[in-house]
């Protein structure tokens, strides 16, 4: 790494090299000979209406072939801008300075045309949103061939087609020959991301940049795509830059990590350095903010207060200081450089450096929970009461939601039924958090909507606080029900009317409940304080708040009428990691203090594990496993639960490197094609390993949701939980093809 970076902050005179670097003329002569990509002092500025935004402020790194660098940061940290600058894909208005060298050749300053010789050839990229990243009007085959044509004009049509089919097969598209002619809209998100990877590796790039490649995908699909990326890297020997906000995703993949904050790297080092010995409070906070799916012991998450700085203003001190609990006056005197952290650089990767003047005092013995003053784990008064003795706040009995699938214009014919929710029964007791998990399309959101609808004509019974939809669904019962049950939405921006001030947002339910004006005002102030917002912000519009604050407003609105049960639809999935922790802690606190019950739907199993008491796993409209969260997560019996849990990357590199993963085949099938027997049989790794004689049972009989399995061969006594699952062969042998273990390298 650059030796110049040791220049101390207080030196006021610039060296010649530094002056050259500031002028953008600096050439890195110090890059290791085997580095395929060397970046020195990369700076990106954008001219906006509000002033010059300095989005990337000095990035240096070297990347060698076959290695993976993870760039971790929250939205706005400059990580995506960095990758686009390397690709030369930033708009012309962006001012870029510094040096980007690919195989020793300078890329910055190249014309669009000259840059095109590298893009897609030795430098390739996979983007975040697979749904919009493919041109809708061309076949996928066409789009892969285009990448080949640009760089291999002499290649024959036949050869290109053969290569495209080969690439599709490599990224795991079933029957690639036929799918070659398909249009992007005929592919699912995961499949489209595979196509994107195929395009990126078409010309065997030396450097592959992946910008949040799995953020938009389900966990099981994420696991598949990460696996494809792994294969792609092995196949091409490329160096990979993996950009992500998810510390779990890179833990198993990356060799080196660079943590970015406010446009600057704040900590770099090998993956083990960063995860096991972080030396910058921000990194420590991030690691502490992520809940773990594999740990039962409950500790509060580390909340990082505040929001990242506005990059229009150049920070005069440490950019993290305003949010840092350890900040002192000296932190505000000049921005700290990356200081080398004492320790051995074992594998020749990135040296461990941290941009904090207190690095040396932040050794292994420091407890991050203490530093960030993580609140104590809140205890609800209901926690002491056994579940059976608590009141039921919500009960579902055999709720079904079937949509007819119609065809024909004038006379509609019913050609099938989509069983979005197919016979759901569960109950929620006072003071507990019950979560429903599953891939998108499994029916978890439909379940919420069915509960919120609360209508007499529904198929099945919904009982909310003793009020049943079957008995009375007149206006009065309904409004009584609405006081028992409120909802928090996934997208905090969409859930707030942009034309309402916070005061209006919060007063709407209160007015509707017939509260007097003066009381409403008092109640609103109370609510603002309750959710940790400044009461004098009530006159602001939602767009003046950050995402986390908006979600707090949404929570306050839900709590306005003092409901017993709050439905949470992916309450933190739209938020940044550091903000997410604060909201989760708030939800936890409110549950304990107000004795609330939650019904949560989430795709992030780590969050579910952290906050829930009980969990249900749904697959194609049915619950396949249900029970106490620790029981289900520590001892999953249904193969789907096992696969789902195994798909979640854990922010623990050592564990990630060695653990065995179950990679499910294909996507969630359409609920229309639901088979006669077990829904999951088409993708089941246990089923695949069964002898045909035993498979028969799975295909013909529907496994019931039952508490006790047929006693296992070991004859272990059933644990005293209420865990239930719907599988004939729990704990069965898994198909070897579905298992993946990465060799430790």
């Amino acid at each position, binding site marked *: 790494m650059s030796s110049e970076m040791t220049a101390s902050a207080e030196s006021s005179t610039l060296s010649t090299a530094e002056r050259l670097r500031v002028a953008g003329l600096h050439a890195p002569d110090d890059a290791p000979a085997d580095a395929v990509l060397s970046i020195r002092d990369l700076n990106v500025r954008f001219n906006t209406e509000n002033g010059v935004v300095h989005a990337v402020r000095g990035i240096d790194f070297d990347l060698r072939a076959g290695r993976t660098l993870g760039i971790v940061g929250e939205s706005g940290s400059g990580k995506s801008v960095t990758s686009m600058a390397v690709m030369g894909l930033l708009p012309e208005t962006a001012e870029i300075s510094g040096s980007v060298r690919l195989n020793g050749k300078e890329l910055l300053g190249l014309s669009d045309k000259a840059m095109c010789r*590298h893009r897609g050839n030795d430098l390739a990229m996979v*983007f975040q949103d697979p749904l919009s990243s*493919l*041109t809708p009007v061309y076949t996928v085959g066409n789009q892969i061939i*285009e990448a080949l044509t640009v760089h291999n004009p002499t290649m024959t049509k036949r050869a290109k087609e053969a290569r495209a089919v080969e690439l599709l097969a490599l990224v795991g598209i079933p029957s690639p020959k036929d799918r070659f002619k398909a249009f992007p*809209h005929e592919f699912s998100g995961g499949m489209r991301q595979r196509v994107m990877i195929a395009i990126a590796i078409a010309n065997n790039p030396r450097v592959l940049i992946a910008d949040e490649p799995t953020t938009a995908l389900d966990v099981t699909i994420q696991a598949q795509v990460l696996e494809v990326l792994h294969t792609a890297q092995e196949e091409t020997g490329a160096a990979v830059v993996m950009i992500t906000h998810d510390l779990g995703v890179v833990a198993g993949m990356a060799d080196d990590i660079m943590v970015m904050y406010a446009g600057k790297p704040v900590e770099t080092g090998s993956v083990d350095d960063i995860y096991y010995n972080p030396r910058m409070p921000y990194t420590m906070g991030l690691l502490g903010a992520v809940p773990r799916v594999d740990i039962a012991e409950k500790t509060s998450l580390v909340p990082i207060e505040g929001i990242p700085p506005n990059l229009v203003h150049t920070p005069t001190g440490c950019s993290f200081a305003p949010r840092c609990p350890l900040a002192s006056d000296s932190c505000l005197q000049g921005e700290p450089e990356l200081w080398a952290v004492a320790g051995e650089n074992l594998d020749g990767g990135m040296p461990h450096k941290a941009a904090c003047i207190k690095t040396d005092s932040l050794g292994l013995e420091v407890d991050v929970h203490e530093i960030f003053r993580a609140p104590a784990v809140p205890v609800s008064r209901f926690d002491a009461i056994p579940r059976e003795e608590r009141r039921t706040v919500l009960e579902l009995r055999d709720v079904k939601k079937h949509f007819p699938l119609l065809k024909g*214009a004038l006379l509609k014919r019913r050609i099938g039924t989509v069983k979005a929710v197919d016979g759901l029964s569960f109950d929620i007791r006072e003071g507990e958090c019950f979560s429903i998990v599953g891939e998108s399309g499994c029916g978890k959101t439909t379940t919420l909507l069915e509960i919120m609808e609360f209508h007499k004509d529904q198929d099945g019974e919904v009982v909310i606080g003793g009020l049943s939809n079957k008995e009375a669904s007149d206006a009065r019962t309904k409004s009584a029900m609405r006081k028992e049950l409120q909802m928090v939405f996934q997208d905090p921006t969409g859930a707030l009317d942009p034309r309402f001030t916070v005061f209006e947002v919060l007063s709407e339910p209160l007015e509707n409940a017939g509260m007097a004006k003066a009381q409403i005002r008092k109640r609103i102030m109370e609510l603002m304080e309750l959710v940790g917002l400044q009461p004098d912000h009530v006159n602001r519009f939602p767009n003046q708040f950050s995402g986390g604050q908006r979600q707090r407003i949404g929570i306050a609105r839900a709590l306005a009428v003092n409901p017993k049960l709050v439905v949470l639809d992916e309450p933190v999935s739209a938020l940044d990691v550091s903000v997410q922790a604060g909201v989760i802690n708030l939800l936890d606190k409110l549950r304990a203090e107000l004795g609330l019950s939650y019904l949560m739907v989430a795709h992030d199993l780590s969050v579910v594990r952290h906050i829930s008491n009980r969990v249900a796993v749904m697959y194609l409209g049915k619950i396949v496993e249900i029970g106490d969260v620790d029981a289900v997560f520590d001892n999953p019996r249904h193969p789907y639960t096992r696969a789902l849990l195994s798909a979640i990357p854990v922010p623990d590199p050592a564990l990630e490197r060695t653990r065995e993963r179950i990679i499910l085949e294909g996507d969630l099938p359409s609920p229309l094609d639901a088979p006669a027997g077990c829904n999951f049989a088409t993708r089941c790794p246990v089923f695949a390993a069964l002898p045909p004689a035993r498979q028969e049972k799975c295909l013909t009989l529907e496994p019931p949701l039952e508490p006790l399995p047929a006693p296992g061969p070991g004859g272990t006594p059933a644990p005293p939980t209420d865990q239930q699952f719907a599988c004939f062969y729990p704990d069965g042998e898994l198909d070897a093809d579905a298992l993946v273990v990465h060799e430790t390298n």
Partner: protein
Amino acid sequence: MLRYLAKRALTYAFMIFLTTTAGYFLAVSTLKPALLEQERIPRPTPEQVANSFRLKGLDPDLSPWERYVDWLTGILTRWDWGRSPNGAFINAEFGDRVWISTRLFLASIILTLIIGVALGVYTAARQYKASDRVITSYSYLVYIVPAPIAYFLVQLGAININETVGERLFFVTGISTPGLEGDGWAQFIDMLAHYAVPTFAITIVGWGTYQIAQRQYLLDNVNADFVRTARAKGLTRNQAITRHALRVSFIPVAQSIAFTIPAIFAGGFFAEKIFAWHGVGSWSIDAISLQDVNAATATLAYGSVIFAIGAILADFATTLVDPRVRVQ
């Protein structure tokens, strides 16, 4: 695909039937040709008028419903759209006039689309540069000028040119010089001299909408994710835009074609009136002032058919450019 188009056509046929029926009732209950006949010299007796109208199938004594049934039966059984008060047959008159209108508009429609879309692409590529500002401002200016006034101004301009040159370069009215002798070349020059002004006028008024729409759609797509993907493959920015963004930006433009054809037809009334081309448009207005029920209804039906054709063409064009709406 064909089945889908056939289904759409059926829906439109039903709509045309409804609008035409509504139009017939409106016309039959408001247009009273007998009043005009009364102004003739020598003044015919009311009985004579009624008799003559009865012979032409325009019996004023029948109720609107009875006349509607007669009229509809005529169309359905004999494809006979009835007669004018002066005895002319609608079917015969109609053919000539449709041909004239079509000749007037066809060139303009094609030019409007091509120029509008081309300028839209051009200005999108040069966003905020002087040429973009000039062309786009022009398109917005067209928006605040009523079409007939624009045609009239073009006509004035052409007359001015003729006067300045001192020779009749352009004909500002009429479709051809009556009784022109000469070989094919002279005929062709005469045709050009007649076509130039109206075609120019209709085109420069028409393209603005397309320029603005195409510019907007293309700009919406220039920074789309899939264009970025194309650039990441190694296409230059311009290649990526022409190969990917342009094709996608055509989708909404293709859909809006549905509205050009009737729009130009509607503008056509004005054009025909001002340039004195006796097409369907000016005929329809004349028919109304002559209290001609059948002719007015026929032109209304024609307008609806043109609209339906435009809409079906738009559907067809959309399915051509957008694989997502291809019907299985």
